[in-house]
Structures are given as structure tokens and as C-alpha cells.
């Protein structure tokens, strides 16, 4: 294939949200009749790139060229008129309408007198599904009565029908499908590809990327790592591109790590044996020692967050046991964990972390107050003192402790959550993506802090999608893949070994 049949060309795309540069100078192009995978960890900029292309977000910088003509995509509707259709992760159709209604909604064929011509509508929908997607189903049944895979197909058909699309964007279409359904979906994708449709395929399943895509574009932290021919890119190298590995100033960290490693004590502070939960995590054995930073590495969906939630007690395990200081844990709840001396900084900062209308002070003292109960209320002075201490310790940039936390930048919000955990004086601290979406300086600060905490004798679990970071801070690394613990490595080994473990290369 030559480069002349480029149907989409995006050049120098930039997009900033308050406090975050979501995309910076990203180039992307799409050829007719190709399946182009976009991969990257959370916050890499995949969805922002798609939103810019489909008119959901306006771009700050750069240009979009469609079939040789420069365009400004004004809205999702405009994108459809331009021939760009999108199928989102969750099927957003109406399950209580028939398949035909869903496929042709808003453009039903009209009969005499303006009423809907049901017969030709059903026929039209059936034809569309059979010819373009190769599936033959009863289109008069309600959509909800079909499995998710078929619903996904209906969403495809609708996307194709709306714009007689030349460009189809699939945002994680397989995340809710099983292996057989996925295979069927791929069949449909190949068929559309041979019809000359250009498909953008966003996924975090590396196997699928290799199975179906022609080219791969890798994004990291809002920047383009590169676009590669799938056949010419070894898996390990892809992982390397995704999670980043730069030979940056590791020296200081490395010496800090070596120094703190001397303080690791033998007995396990927190211990998990056969810990698991149906559909989320296969049984895992794990030990966390005082003075140690335990890295937990793995891609999105590998079970790393699920593991954190089980250890902290927000989810109850249905198999295995947790022992804290040698004693079996019986009460699983965040409150019980906090009182025990286990704290978690959750991955989902907005949804499970900050309380945006409350002040910085209230956010910081919240978990501490929760552990004290309703009636041992911290006095105003105690609250202020606690807040001030952590604002200073973590270098939180805020005009005052009485500022609503929503006015802070992402990095500072993250530090507030960290402060909340630290204020409870935990012995075990689980950090799930503590550096996501924050700037480089703040990242380094948090990494350093984690090592300092370990040196004080706390046991830290450090979960991150940036392998480099895990490697830099951790004394020992547990690698998860496909909801399973695959191996455990000491921090002395090569990053390459960890990458291989994540990628699943034997």
C-alpha cells in the first residue's frame, strides 16, 4: 500500500484541559481499508485524540485533513456528515426497541401518508446487517434480547447506515465481549476493511492488536511515541513504547532505593494468601514487608486495581485470606483497614478520591476523622494543624486550607488524597496510580516521598502503568497479567524482564 490513499491526516494536534496537556503535537493518519490500532495507557490521550477527530472536543492546535481537504470538525453530527462514525465502548442504543428500529432510528423509510413503512424498514435493516456485516438475525426482536456482541453489531450497522461511513472508530469495542464474540466482531471488521472502510481500533488488549491491526499508533502522556507497521513491531517493543523507558536521571533514585533497602525487615506486615475474587482476580499470594516498596506492574485490566481494592477492603474477596501482622483479617471495609493501619490512595481520583466541594482541610482530615468516629471530633485547631502540616510536607499549592479542593490542579488534588491517607498514620500504604495525569515535577516528588515513607518503616505498594516509575521506586515487583499474578521479580533485575513478563513472552 502506498501513502497516497490517506483518508485522514491529523497534524500537530494539541489539546489542553485545565491543568493537563492532554495532547501535544500529535500526528496521526489513516489509510483506506486499514485497521489502525491506537494504544496507550490511561491518560495517554487516546480518547482525546478521537474526541478531537469526531468533533466532541475542539482542538487547540494542529489541523485535520479529510481526503485531501482541510476541515474543521464542528460537532459529532458534523463528523457523521463527513463520513466519520463512532461506536463507543458501552452500547448506547435502546434495548427496548427492535433491532431494525435501532439501526434505522431517525431515518425510517416512510410510507404513504407519512407513517413509518415497517415492512421495508425491517427489510432494509435485515439487508444491511446481512450484506455489510454478514449476520442474519430476526430484526423485529428487541435489541435487548440479543447478546452484547449482537448489540455491538447493531451499533456498527447503525454507524455505517448513518453516514455510509468511510471511517469507523471503535472505542474499546471488545471490552465486554468474550472470545467467541470477539472473533465474530473481527470477522465483521475484516469484511468492512475489504470494502475499503478505514477503521480506528482502540483497545488495551495487546493480543487483539496483533490479531487484527495493520498499523499501530502508540501514545504516551499525550504525546506521540510513533506509528508502526504491526508486523514489524515485536511485542516487547510495543510494551516498551507504551509504558516508557528513558535512561533519565535514575542515579539519585537508585542510591536512595539501595539505602532504604537496608531498612527492610523480614517479617511480613501484610500478607495475602490465595486472595481473589470471581471475575476480577485469580488467587494471588503476596507479602508486604515493613520498610519496603512493593511495585505492582501490569497493564490496564490486568487486575492491579482489583488487587488494591481487595487488600484495602473496598471489595470483599470470595477466596483466600489476608493477614495483618500475622493475624487473619475478618472485617473487610475501608474503615476497618484504616483503623488497622492500612490506607489506600485510589486510582479513580475524581470518582473515589477527592470530595470536590469540601475544602482542602476537610479533605485531608476526612479519613483520620472517620477512624476516630463521630464524636471524637477534631477541634478546629487540630484540623488546621494537620492540614498545614501536610500542605507543607507534600508541598501542596493552595492559597489556603479553606480552599475548595476542586480549585486545585490535578497534581495537587492527588497530593491532597495522599495527605488524607498519610494523616491516618498507616503502616501499610497502597498507592494506586498516584502519579497519573500529573506533571513530571510532582511525579518525582511523589516517588521520592514513597521511598522516604518506606525508610520510616512503612510498607508501600506502588501501582503504576508507567513501568519506569515502578522500577525506579520498588524493591520488589509483582507482575500481573490477565487478572493473574504471573511472576515476582526483585528490583535488581532488568526492566526488560518485567516487560517480558507483562507482555507474556515465554
Amino acid at each position, binding site marked *: 500500500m502506498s501513502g497516497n490513499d490517506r483518508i485522514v491526516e491529523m497534524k500537530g494536534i494539541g489539546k489542553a484541559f485545565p491543568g493537563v496537556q492532554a495532547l501535544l503535537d500529535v500526528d496521526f493518519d489513516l489509510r483506506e481499508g486499514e485497521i489502525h490500532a491506537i494504544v496507550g495507557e490511561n491518560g495517554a490521550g487516546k480518547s482525546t485524540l478521537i474526541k478531537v477527530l469526531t468533533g466532541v472536543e475542539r482542538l487547540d492546535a494542529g489541523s485535520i485533513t479529510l481526503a485531501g481537504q482541510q476541515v474543521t470538525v464542528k460537532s459529532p453530527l458534523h463528523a457523521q456528515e463527513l463520513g466519520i462514525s463512532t461506536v463507543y465502548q458501552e452500547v448506547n442504543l435502546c434495548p427496548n426497541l427492535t433491532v431494525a428500529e435501532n439501526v434505522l432510528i431517525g431515518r425510517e423509510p416512510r410510507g404513504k401518508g407519512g407513517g413509518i413503512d415497517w415492512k421495508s424498514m425491517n427489510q432494509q435493516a435485515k439487508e444491511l446487517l446481512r450484506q455489510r456485516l454478514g449476520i442474519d438475525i430476526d430484526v423485529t426482536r428487541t435489541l435487548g434480547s440479543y447478546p452484547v456482541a449482537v448489540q455491538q453489531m447493531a451499533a456498527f450497522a447503525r454507524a455505517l447506515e448513518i453516514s455510509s461511513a468511510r471511517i469507523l472508530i471503535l472505542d474499546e469495542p471488545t471490552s465486554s465481549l468474550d472470545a467467541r464474540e470477539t472473533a465474530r466482531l473481527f470477522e465483521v471488521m475484516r469484511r468492512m476493511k475489504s470494502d475499503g472502510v478505514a477503521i480506528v481500533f482502540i483497545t488495551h488488549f495487546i493480543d487483539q492488536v496483533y490479531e487484527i491491526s495493520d498499523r499501530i499508533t502508540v501514545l504516551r502522556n499525550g504525546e506521540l511515541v510513533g506509528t508502526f507497521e504491526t508486523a514489524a513491531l515485536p511485542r516487547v517493543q510495543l510494551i516498551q513504547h507504551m509504558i516508557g523507558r528513558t535512561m533519565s536521571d535514575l542515579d539519585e533514585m537508585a542510591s536512595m532505593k539501595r539505602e532504604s533497602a537496608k531498612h527492610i525487615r523480614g517479617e511480613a506486615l501484610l500478607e495475602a494468601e490465595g486472595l481473589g475474587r470471581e471475575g476480577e482476580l485469580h488467587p494471588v499470594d503476596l507479602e508486604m514487608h515493613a520498610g519496603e516498596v512493593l511495585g505492582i506492574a501490569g497493564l490496564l485490566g490486568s487486575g492491579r486495581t482489583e488487587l488494591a481494592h481487595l487488600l484495602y477492603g*473496598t471489595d470483599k474477596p470470595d477466596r483466600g485470606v489476608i493477614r495483618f501482622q500475622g493475624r487473619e483479617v475478618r472485617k473487610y*471495609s*475501608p*474503615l476497618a*483497614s*484504616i*483503623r488497622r493501619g492500612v490506607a*489506600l490512595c*485510589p486510582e479513580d481520583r475524581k*470518582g*473515589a*478520591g*477527592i*470530595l*470536590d*466541594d*469540601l475544602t482542602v482541610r*476537610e479533605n485531608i482530615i*476526612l*479519613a483520620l*476523622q*472517620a*477512624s*476516630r*468516629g*463521630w*464524636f*471524637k*471530633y*477534631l477541634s478546629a485547631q487540630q484540623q488546621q494543624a494537620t492540614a498545614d502540616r501536610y500542605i507543607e510536607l507534600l508541598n501542596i499549592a493552595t492559597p489556603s486550607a479553606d480552599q475548595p479542593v476542586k480549585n486545585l490542579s490535578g497534581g495537587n488534588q492527588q497530593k491532597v488524597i495522599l495527605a*488524607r491517607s498519610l494523616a*491516618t498514620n498507616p503502616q501499610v500504604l497502597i498507592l494506586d496510580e498516584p502519579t497519573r495525569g500529573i506533571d513530571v515535577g510532582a511525579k518525582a516528588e511523589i516517588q521520592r516521598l514513597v521511598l522516604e515513607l518506606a525508610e520510616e518503616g512503612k510498607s508501600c505498594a506502588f501501582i503504576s502503568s508507567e513501568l519506569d516509575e515502578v522500577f525506579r521506586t520498588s524493591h520488589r515487583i509483582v507482575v500481573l497479567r490477565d487478572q493473574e499474578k504471573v511472576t515476582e521479580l526483585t528490583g535488581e533485575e532488568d526492566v526488560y524482564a518485567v516487560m517480558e513478563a507483562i507482555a507474556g513472552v515465554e
Partner: protein
Amino acid sequence: MMKKPKRPFQWSKLTESRLFLPLVALALILLFDLLFVDGFFDISYSGGRLSGSLINILRNSSTVILLALGMTLVIATGGIDLSVGAIMAIAASVAAIMMNPVIIGVELPPHLMEFINDPNFTFAPLWQVIMGTLIAATICGLWNGVLVAYGNIQPMVATLILMYAGRGIAQLITNGVRIQIFYEPYAFIGGGWLILPFSLYIVAIVFVLAWLLTRKTAIGLFVESVGVNARSSFFSGIEERKIKLLAYTFCGFCAGVAGLVASSNIKTSDSNNIGLDYELDAILAVVIGGTLMTGGRFSLLASIIGGLVIQAITTSMYAIGVAANAVLAIKGVVVILVILLYSEQVRALVRRVTAPKGVSR
């Protein structure tokens, strides 16, 4: 430490206060009265009582304010309680039956029967009547709380159950009879005066109780936290369910107090009419007080002002001779105005007008 420079008075400090908008709303209504109603602000003193339109507003708003205090906590958790009016009816029935159980077939000794309509007779002593009533109402609130917090039923649906069933239960308690209350000391609760109407002292006591409960313990913070984001609160170790249970239970308690005040004021247990539609006034009072229906930050004082605003509207409308039925329509218009007043656009406007000039913040 650097000496703080003397800061000029800042309008924005005042306008950002939670009490600002409710007070503006109240002031606008009183301004209307000042211009259009003669003698609205007259207060006279005779026979140990203060009286006048303003006193009437205070007195007549006491039941709604009592309800609004409990409702504030419920709404702050992100919930709603539609059953408070019905709980008032249950409370009234319980009180009436404890003072005069003859109606449900309790046989009194003959020497007591002749006193049954005596203004100094009660079957159970007053303190037992009050305790029994409040316990009954609190159990109603507890029921709502259990449904919402542990049954995971949507608050509107969960409290709708008692809203419908409550008046039926109230009728069952009194065997379907409207019981006249003759006992004079009971009538003092809602109808008595100690210079000011006695019900105002009750409001003051419940307010102080609520304030101590929420602001001198961590409960207020936890209520706000649950209302802002229940999941984040859970992750921070807050027991969301217990907080909700407490809010609904307290709301039931407040409705019980309101039931006492209302029934003693009209001296009857009128299951069909006591507290009818009061839940809506209470919700409106909380909304005027600036607590978001989605939950979060709340102010008890602002809700009280909200209750006063509602009653001030009603009293003003009567004062200028609007028919009782039309008052509802006027209230609707006022609600629209309040919503406009509270909108982000108006707030932005206020901010722009009052922003300190030449001072960078």
C-alpha cells in the same frame, strides 16, 4: 510572622456567605410589605404577649422550620423525605390517644370517665405523651432510614411508602376518629405564649440540638461528605449507611416535634389534614436555604430563613387580600424567582458587581 495589612470591607465576603441569598429573598418580601401593607411592621404588647404580623410569621412558620431542620440533613446526604407530613399525622394521633384512649375502646374506671372532657384531665402524664409521640415519630424516621440506607431503595420511593401509608396508620391508631384534645397544658405547646409564641422556643431548642449534633461532632462533615460523593466517602472510611440512617431518623424526630406543635395548636388529631403538603414546604425551605438537592454543603440557619421566606410570602399575600387558593400559585411564581436568583448567571453577576476593584486575589 508578618503583620496582616488592614483589609477594606469586601462585599464579596458577604455575598459568598451561604446566608446571603436567603436573606436577600426575605428582605425583598419584607420590602414589598413595607411598601404595600400598612402597619405590617407594627408590634404591640399586651397581656404578656407580643403580637403583630412579624410575630405571626414566626409563629406560623415554626412547624415548617422544624421539618426543614430534619429535611436539611436528609437532603444534604443526597436524599429526600416525602413522609414528614404523614409522620406529623401519626405523631398527632399517638399524642391524642395517649391523652384520651377511650375512643379506641379502653375502659376507664367510672370515676375517671366523668373527667374525660375536663381541660385538666389526661390519661398519661404530659411528659409520657411527649416521649411516646417522639419515639413513635423517630421509629418512623428509622424505618425510612433502614429502607434507604440498608434496603438501597431510592429515597423518593422509600419515603413515598410512608407518605401514603402514614395517614392510614394515623387513622388506624385513632380508630378513624378525629379526637378532640381538651387537655390545656398540651395546648400550650403550640398555642401558648411566653412573651413570644412558645413554639418558637421549641424551634430554638431543636435548632440548637441539630446544630450541636452536626457541628460539634463530625456528623455534619460526614453528611456533607456523603452528599458530595458517596463513593469517595466510602473509600475514606466513612460509614455512609449509618450516616444516612441517622439523617432520616433525625428527620422523623423533627416531624414528631412538628406534629406535637401542630396538633396542640388546633387541639385535635386530624389525620387527614395535619401536616398535609408540609413536606413540600419543608423541601422548599431547604432549597431556598441554598442546600443542593444533589446533596453536599448545608446550613441549618439558612434553611430556617428559607422557612421564614415561605411563611412571609403566605402572610404577605393574605395581608394584601389574595384568596387562600391563589396563594399557592403565587408561591409557585416565587419559587421560580428564587431559582433564578440562585442561578449561576445571577451569582456571576453579583460577583462581577461586588468584586473588589483593583485588588488582585
